[in-house]
Structure formats: C-alpha cells, structure tokens
C-alpha cells in the first residue's frame, strides 16, 4: 500500500520535503498538488489544511506545526518533533503603545483558541478579531490593541513597529498520523521515521 503524505505548501513544506525525501524520491515541485512514485504519494495543501487531510484519512501522515495542532485540538498521533519549523507564538503590541490595564483587549489573531486560553489563564477579558493573514497590520491601523501570532526572527514585527509582549508557546514542525491509517501503515511509517532520523543525524 502506498503511503500518502500531506505536506504544507510554502517554506515549511520545502524543508519538510527535503527532510523526508531528498535526494532519492522525486523532484520538488509544489505547483503540482499531487505527486507520487511507487511507494509514496505527496499532497501539497495549505498548512492549516494538513490537519484536516490527516484527520479525515485522506492522508496517512502529514507535517504541520505544533501551534496549528494545538489550535485545532486535533486528536492525531504526534509521532515526532522534527528538527525544523521552530518559532514562537507571542503577543505583540505597538512599540509606541504604553500598556495600560484595559477592561477588554481587542486581540487580532489567526489562533483564536490559543489566544483565548492564554488570556483566560491571566484573567484578561478579550474580544477576538479573527484574521487569516497580515495580522501585524491590525494594531497599526487601530483595529486591535494587540496581536497573537507566530514569530520566527521578529523582523516582520519590527518592520511594522511592533514588539513582543509575552511568549505563549514554542512551536516546531511535527510529524502527525491518522489513528486508523497508522494501524495499516505502521511498518512503513516507522521505517520512514527511522530512516530519515538517521539520515538527518548524519548530515547534522
């Protein structure tokens, strides 16, 4: 049986591809959304959709961020933390903004559940402004008081005059598997993990 792998399009996906397949599988080309050889089929999907593809069994395994996993609360096997995709989920506000206690904070984010959990834990009431991208813009134009978003280097925050307030969690790429699919592809999945971990250890 062929193993179906869902990979996120974009930078994380390219690294994931290199980690899993390079150089022996097939050429990297994420414009073709489904590619396969005799043993593996790769589906290129939006990063957040990797979880849905694996959860619904359309893919056996997938690579996604720990942040997305925790945001969706998906019950998938979290087989391995992968040595890439490191970033942090933070709260950030305008540098020029003096933090003053507000009854209710307006929080722009792609991570409403994680943001809610965080602010609940510090007993701060919030209104979530759900956004799908360019979250950094929200405080600049006064749409939100703060943002909750992923940062890698912090350069986007800096370019938009924002600074980190506090860190909520550290994230990295995760290899996840569907429960049923794992049961049917257990040997192939474990072999893949072992092979690639060893290969990575040698090149590291």
């Amino acid at each position, binding site marked *: 049986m062929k193993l179906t792998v869902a990979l996120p399009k974009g930078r994380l996906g390219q690294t994931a591809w290199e980690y899993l397949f390079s150089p022996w599988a097939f050429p990297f080309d994420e414009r073709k959304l489904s590619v396969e050889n005799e043993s593996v089929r790769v589906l290129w999907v939006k990063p957040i959709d990797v979880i849905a593809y694996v*959860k*619904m*069994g*359309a893919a056996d395994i997938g690579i996604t961020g720990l942040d997305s996993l925790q945001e969706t609360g998906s019950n*998938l*096997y*979290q*087989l*391995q*933390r992968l040595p890439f995709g490191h970033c942090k989920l933070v709260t950030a506000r305008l540098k020029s903004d003096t933090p003053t206690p507000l009854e209710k904070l307006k929080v722009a984010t792609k991570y409403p559940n994680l943001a809610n959990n965080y602010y609940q834990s510090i007993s701060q009431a919030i209104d979530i402004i759900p956004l799908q991208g360019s979250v950094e813009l929200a405080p600049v134009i006064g749409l939100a008081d703060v943002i909750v978003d992923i940062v890698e280097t912090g350069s986007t925050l800096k370019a938009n005059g924002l600074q980190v307030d506090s860190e909520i969690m550290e994230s990295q790429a995760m290899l996840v*598997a*569907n*429960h*049923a*699919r*794992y*049961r*049917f592809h*257990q040997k192939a999945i*474990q072999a893949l993990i072992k092979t690639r971990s060893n290969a990575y250890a040698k090149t590291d």
Partner: protein
Amino acid sequence: MRWFEQQLDRSKKIKKLLTIADEFAYTLIDPPYFINYDAFRAEQPTMDSLRWIKLADPKGQVNVLRPDLTTSVMQKLKWRKSDGPLKVCYNASTFTQSFQGFNDAKEFGYEYFNAPLKSGETTLRNTLDRVIDGLSLDAVIECSHRGLLTVLTDIADISEDEQPVFRDLLNQKAWGDLTQWLTGRKTKAPVQSFIETVSNYQGDLSGFTDLLNASEYAPMFKSIIEELLAFDSQTSNAVVIDGSMVDGWMYYVGLTFNVYDASVPEAIIRGGRYQVSNSDIEAIGFSVQLDALKGGQS
C-alpha cells in the same frame, strides 16, 4: 482506495450494519414501551441511534439501553416513570460475567431483564466477530489493557500530577517526547528502557506476552497477560497489541480494544471491560461508532 471510493464503501457498510442490527438482537424482548435514547454513544438521542433502534425494534415499542448506565443517565430517564416502569435490557449487547446484581438500578425504579440473542449464547466471538464479518471489514483489532498504565505508572513511581502528561505522551505515540520526559524526571535507566520498549510495542500477542514475561516485573503483568490471551482466543480476527494505547473511556477496568477498517479514518468499534456502575459486576462490551462509519469526526 481513493477518498470517494472510501465514502461509497462506508455507505455500504452502514447499510450492512443496519441489517445486522435488525437481525441481531432484541427480538425476544417483551416490549413495554419506547424511549428515544442513544444506546451507543451519547447521552442524548441522535438520528443515527434512532434509526438503529427503529430497525432493531420495528414496532417502535422498546428501547434497549446498555447495562453500563451511569447514575446520571438513570436520573435523566426517571421522568418517564410516569408512563410506567422502564425495562432495561442487560444482556443483549454485552457479555456479563454474572447476571446477579443491578440492585442499584432498582433504586431508580428500573427493571432489568435478559434478552438472549437469536443466534444463541452471547459471547464475544459471536458478536464482535459477527459485526466485523457482517460489515466485511478489512479489520485490524488493536488492543491493550488498562492495567498496563497502572503497572507502568507504579514501576516508574509516576505521581498523580504527572499522570495526565504520561498518558498524553503514550496516547499520542510521542515516543521521542516520552524519552525526553522520562529522562527529565530522572526515571531509572532500566525502568525507562522497559517503559519505552513496552509503549513502543506494536505487534502480535505472543511477542508482547514474551516481552512482559521476560521482564523482572513479570508477576505484575500476570492478570494482564491472562486477559489478553483470553481475548485473543475469543475472536477469530487478528489482534495487534499496542503498548501505548491507554486512551478510551476511563471506565474501562481491563481489556480495551478498537477495531479499524482501511476505509474509515477512525475506529469503527470501541470496547473493553468495564465495571457496571455501583456494582461488582464486570462485563466486556463494545459500541459501533456510527459517526465514524459515516465519515464524520467526533
């Protein structure tokens, strides 16, 4: 199998499942009257459960509840008492070790009664296998034992506060994180190695039994091995032991099992040994996950 083919396959399985339900049980029940109740999953009726029950009881006069009724379920149903006594089937879909007891239910005014299957004696073999065969499942049964978690917890001296983390790491098959966590809490090397080996075990019963028997903790695993062997002998389907499987309903007290099919993304059948509430009676039961079969995610 492509995704749309899986959908087609699932809908065929649902049809078969409903046929089995019609044929399978409850026909000898003397029907007092009908209450809509989800006998299989939730504590509220669902369309699936109603459809199932309608087929199981074409006259729509009786509802069969599993004997693992919780007190809260009984209390919720109590309002129907004004319509007369509620009878609850205790032996149609489960496998009790003893038919005595159920006194707790009497406090709520319920009357339990036996409803033997048409096909004869109620055993795990003629029910679990019947459902698996009837659905033509490309089945893999994975099983484990709730006692395994208890024993591993004891061996590693894992505190109550640490248990949720330990359970999560096992359930998620996050073996790398588990190693790191055990190292971080300074678990002794031989214990750590044993836990990692057991939780990483995914194979047949004989290998698992050998693994447990060979360990210095063997006496602690005696009852676990015995129950797993008994389960294996009761089903004609292949069983995979999964040492990391500690999920499922916390009311399971011994054996736990899931049945997977290649066309369905989650377990179709979930079951295990449980203790009937407020009694010493233990039974092995299972439920068919209609939502999973339909392709919905819980």
